[in-house]
């Protein structure tokens, strides 16, 4: 690094100012963790860690709180949305990198980005007013009719389709995360060196075989990182789900039932928790969510960094 003969005072000031600015990131994360811990300590003292995480009680009247119903809802909607989103996102990535003619690549890319830019409250509104009636009027009765009797799978389709339930919420979530997964997958696919693909073509592989056996294995670290990143995003989604989830604190096996996620519980009950232990339990939930998303992102980062290192070899 170049240095001048004597230290310029303005330089020192500027470097300190910028250093302070960048330190806000560390300070904020520590502050958030500190506050969350502090506010949830009454609940932590009362309920402990394991008991809170495994209790299905959410009873403001009897002042007994447990996170399991919320965690269950969060995990179920997130996993379901991933299951629905990943195939579509991969399909889009494959299309954009391998199948589509060049002139289409730009517009479709922009289209996917626009999908990502739509604010989550719009998804929520659309879900409540447009998707939910379609679900309760056509799709859910149809699914119920053909799948209700099937053993094992049928258990997911019991009860009256109301449109305001886990299935609708998961579908909306999946639409929201498609763009993330698709664009990271596309970027990972594009990093496959042309040489490797060309050698495969040279020995007579079809396009699909190149995708299946060359591109995808090569980029699997990046793609996996992208999937975990989308998982993290879906975990923290509030507004898109708040409209159509139904807010019922219980563990249920039917996709046609209402449920609760951590984010929606926070949105609905935070401003109203009137007893101290109630508010503290909500902060405890927020802490649990923060931990879950932190861990998920750390895992995603790990894979993405590994992929980066591999590709820049």
């Amino acid at each position, binding site marked *: 690094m170049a240095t001048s003969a004597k230290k310029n005072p303005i330089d020192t000031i500027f470097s300190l100012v910028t250093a302070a600015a960048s330190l806000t990131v560390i300070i904020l994360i520590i502050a958030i963790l500190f506050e969350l811990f502090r506010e949830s300590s009454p609940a932590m003292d009362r309920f402990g860690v394991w008991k809170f995480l495994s209790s299905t*009680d*959410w*009873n*403001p*009247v*009897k002042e007994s709180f447990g996170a399991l119903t919320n965690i269950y809802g969060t995990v179920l909607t997130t996993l379901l949305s991933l299951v629905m989103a990943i195939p579509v996102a991969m399909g889009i990535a494959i299309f954009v990198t391998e199948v589509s003619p060049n002139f289409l690549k730009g517009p479709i890319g922009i289209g996917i980005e626009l999908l990502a830019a739509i604010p989550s409250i719009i998804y929520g509104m659309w879900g409540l007013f447009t998707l*939910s*009636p379609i679900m*309760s009027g056509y799709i859910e009765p149809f699914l119920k009719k053909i799948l209700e009797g099937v053993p094992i799978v049928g258990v997911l389709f019991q*009860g*009256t389709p*109301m*449109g*305001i339930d886990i299935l609708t919420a998961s579908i909306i979530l999946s639409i929201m995360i498609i763009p993330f997964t698709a664009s990271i997958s596309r970027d990972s696919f594009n990093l496959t060196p042309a040489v490797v693909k060309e050698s495969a073509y040279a020995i007579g592989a079809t396009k699909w075989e190149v995708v299946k056996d060359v591109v995808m294995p090569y980029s699997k670290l990046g793609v996996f990182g992208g999937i975990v990143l989308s998982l993290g995003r879906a975990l923290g989604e509030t507004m898109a789900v708040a409209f159509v989830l*139904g*807010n*019922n*604190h219980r563990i249920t096996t039917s996709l046609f039932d*209402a449920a609760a996620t951590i984010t929606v519980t926070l949105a*609905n*009950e935070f*401003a*109203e*928790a*009137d007893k101290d232990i109630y*508010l503290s339990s909500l902060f405890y939930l927020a802490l649990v969510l923060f931990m879950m998303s932190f861990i998920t992102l750390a895992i995603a980062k790990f894979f993405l960094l590994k992929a980066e290192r591999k590709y820049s070899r």
Partner: protein
Amino acid sequence: MKVFLKMVFVLAVVLSFTSVNAAETLNGAGASFPYPVYSAWAFDYNKVAGVQLNYQSIGSGGGIKQITARTVDFGASDAPLTTEELNKDGLLQFPAVMGGVVPVVAIPGVKEGQLRLDSDAICKIYLGDIKHWDDSKIKSLNPGLNLAHDEITVVHRSDGSGTTAIFTTYLSELCPDWKDKVGAGTSVKWPVGIGGKGNEGVANYTKRTPNSIGYVEFAYAEQNKLAYVLLKNPAGNFVEPNFKTFEDAAATANFDPKKHFHLWLVNAPGKNAWPIAGATFILLAKEKTDSNKKVVAFYDWAFKNGDKKANELVYVPLPASLKDKIRAYWKANGLQ
């Protein structure tokens, strides 16, 4: 450098904006039960006194919580607090208006005032024991109605609600089963159903879900043309929710200023009384003397000028004798 100066200038403009003497703002939050009438009163009061009374409907639980945390100037709750609770948090309480909680249904073909239910039927529906509209219990109460074997979707509140408190107090008083399994309160562990946020949310979900049943403050049923239900009251009559039956329920009420007006109006004994009536209360923090005087000034104005508006929205204004008791309470507590 130039850009930096420009930004500073803009920042200065924005900041000057915010210290411009904005119109006087009073912040209140709480029950969605009286939201239609409070916001109507605030709208008119703003024209008369220039004060912006910003009332946010977040549920009675929210009202209690926010005034306890002193993040608003007044809280509103349909669930009255007891003297111990008020003393613990340094709060004062008085009623503002009365109304009725009404079960509403969205059954295809059933219009308002057609379906008859009693407390036993409602209990069982909300407990999940009665699951279909053509259940024998419901049929026996409604011999003239053709009810199909449709599954009932129960709608309740997802937030902390005084309306829920009134409704569950009504159920607990008459159904030992409900009292045992669920109990009464602003936020209970509902055995079945989907939760809507606020009276608004319950009205919304009930409206768009066929074969559903919900409970809302009557103004919401009226404004959204929801089909209300006839209930059997303790005197044995099936009554319709309207101004007269609410008034009848309120007529027997004896509010005691010494108990800070704590009173439930459910299961009132009158012949034509609506069984799920309730008053809604304003909560003030004792030490906020300045803002308390302004809040009281608003409610004083509403007591003098707001009865007509309340009637229009089918709320029962407090009787003159009660208003006098409240004014005496204000004077005794340094609020006026």
